[in-house]
């Protein structure tokens, strides 16, 4: 199972201790009642999992083997034709590569940026609680408002970005179209790195101060002590950010769509600058602009499988490099 290292961190299954059997009840019957109760409690989630996750995925799998357009009732089974087409469609492959690049750039950048900020606001400086709050604030802004704000800043004629360029004597740039649109998108993503900061900060607060003091006594430099003490100890937290970050980046949809120069852009995602047509945008266009529900479902399933494979690979690498062992609570369970 892909999530096993995670389970180990959370200390999950072994963690729940059965309550001591009382002398008045027979253990066997109690166990039975507790099992029934357990299923009573997890039932809503389990039903939701089947109805709202497993079934839709299965439905998408079936659709992906038809030529459905979402409307006409007589969709025909076409087998793997959509998948074959997908693998030979240059546009799809290009979108896939672009999304991979986007992920490879934004995920490390937000994690490193977040860690950098976390290290800064973890220092004893006046007003650090205020700094933490303010740096986190952009991450709280709903994606729609964040995207629209960036659209206003990078507007060609009236935006602050071009005004700044003009002030230093550089010619204005049409930011929201190719080739610059992608940089705006990356900046927008980076603006929200307060999220990573908060998670890293939580990790940093678990690093025992004595370790750094001991390292200093032994003559270690700040960098050495960061590299050899801090990073290993917070590696589970960084690892978590890598996993969730990659999964989120691969599905990025809204910001590129809303950054498009046309108003009310969702109606025609095909008008997007090429550089910002990420995978999910492409899927959306196939569904709602081209009404190719079968092909789009195949695209969804391919993304799903890619995410599964990538997650499995990261967990494999993570199992070797991530250091679990500081949580004193884990030892005795």
């Amino acid at each position, binding site marked *: 199972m892909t999530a096993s290292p995670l389970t180990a961190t959370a200390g999950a299954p072994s963690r729940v201790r059965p309550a*001591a059997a009382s002398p008045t009840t027979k253990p066997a019957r109690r166990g039975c009642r507790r099992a029934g109760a357990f299923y009573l409690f997890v039932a809503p*989630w389990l039903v939701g999992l089947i109805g709202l996750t497993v079934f839709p995925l299965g439905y998408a799998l079936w*659709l992906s083997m038809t030529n459905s357009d979402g409307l006409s009732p007589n969709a025909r089974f076409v087998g793997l034709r959509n998948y074959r087409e997908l693998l030979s469609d240059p546009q799809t492959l290009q979108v896939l590569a672009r999304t991979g690049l986007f992920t490879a750039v934004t995920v490390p950048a937000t994690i490193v940026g977040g860690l950098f900020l976390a290290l800064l606001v973890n220092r004893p400086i006046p007003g650090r609680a205020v700094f933490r709050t303010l740096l986190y604030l952009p991450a709280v*802004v*709903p994606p729609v408002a964040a995207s629209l704000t960036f659209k*206003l800043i990078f507007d060609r004629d009236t935006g602050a970005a071009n005004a700044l360029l003009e002030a230093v004597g550089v010619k204005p740039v049409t930011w929201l179209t190719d080739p610059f649109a992608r940089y705006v998108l990356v900046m927008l993503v980076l603006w929200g790195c307060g999220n990573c900061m908060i*998670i890293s900060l939580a*990790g940093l607060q678990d690093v025992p101060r004595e370790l750094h003091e001991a390292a200093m006594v032994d003559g270690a430099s700040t960098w050495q002590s960061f590299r050899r003490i801090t990073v290993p100890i917070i590696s589970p937290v960084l690892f978590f950010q890598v996993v969730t970050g990659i999964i989120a980046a691969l599905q990025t949809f809204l910001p590129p769509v809303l950054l498009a120069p046309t108003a009310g852009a969702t109606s025609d995602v095909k008008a997007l600058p090429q550089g910002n047509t990420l995978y999910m945008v492409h899927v959306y266009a196939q569904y709602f602009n081209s009404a190719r529900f079968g092909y789009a479902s195949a695209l*969804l399933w391919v993304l799903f499988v890619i995410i599964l494979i990538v997650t499995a690979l990261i967990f494999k690498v993570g199992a070797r490099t991530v250091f679990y062992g500081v949580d004193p609570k884990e030892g005795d369970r």
Partner: protein
Amino acid sequence: MSTRRFALFILLVAIVGLFLSPFAWLVIVALKDPSELAALHWLPEHPRPGNFVEAVTSIPFLGYARNSLMIAGIYSVLVTLTSAWVGFGFARLSAPGKRILFTILLATMMLPQIITLIPTYLIFSKLGMVDTYWPWVLWGLSGAAFLIFLFRQFFANMPRELEEAAVLDGCSYPRIFWSIFVPQSWPVLAASLVLSFTWSWGDYVGPVLLLSADRTTLPVAIATLYTNPQGIPSNNLLAAGSIIYIVPVLALFLFAQRGFVAGFSTSGLK
């Protein structure tokens, strides 16, 4: 303050300035006169607070706000209660198959939401649930993996003595959950409410897919409706509307900061 610490302080001030500058621009644009929108003006000559009023009155803003509030309210209350309920099961009870179910729960935290969204839309449309609030009721009633995990962590750390006497007295588990655990867990309940409310308030794709134009939510309205009669975006109203839309979230966040941070630190799976 040592020189080094002072340099650090200055660096932080600079970074914070950079991070807050988009907000500043949003406010500046929101105060501009329409005549100042065609070319660049650094600062509005005659700031127009009236833009905020116009942003609310020129489109049915309050109606959309009510839709947003309804959806976010329904979803956050239901998802919090359900997640607490399921979290209690994972934290306090055991049964064969629990281990594998918990692994699946954690795996679904990693599962892409959007991948199921479009097939879900097709299913909902077949069930006649498009353009109703039923999808949010169903999503709420099935809990959210992250919140279930949050509640599980919290409940698992509560002392066993809490329920022991109740179990001996033959008290049912739903009763134990409701009268003993829920009253003890208001910090997590609050965190969960704030988080889920914020998610739902910020969600765009769900309402775009599932609701018609006049039943849709605030983010969709803001992104699409602020244009002048010529069809050109009225950026000053757009900015003003966005600010009104953001403020509740920021206020909620500042108000419930601890819960937010607690939630996110647990999400680091320490």
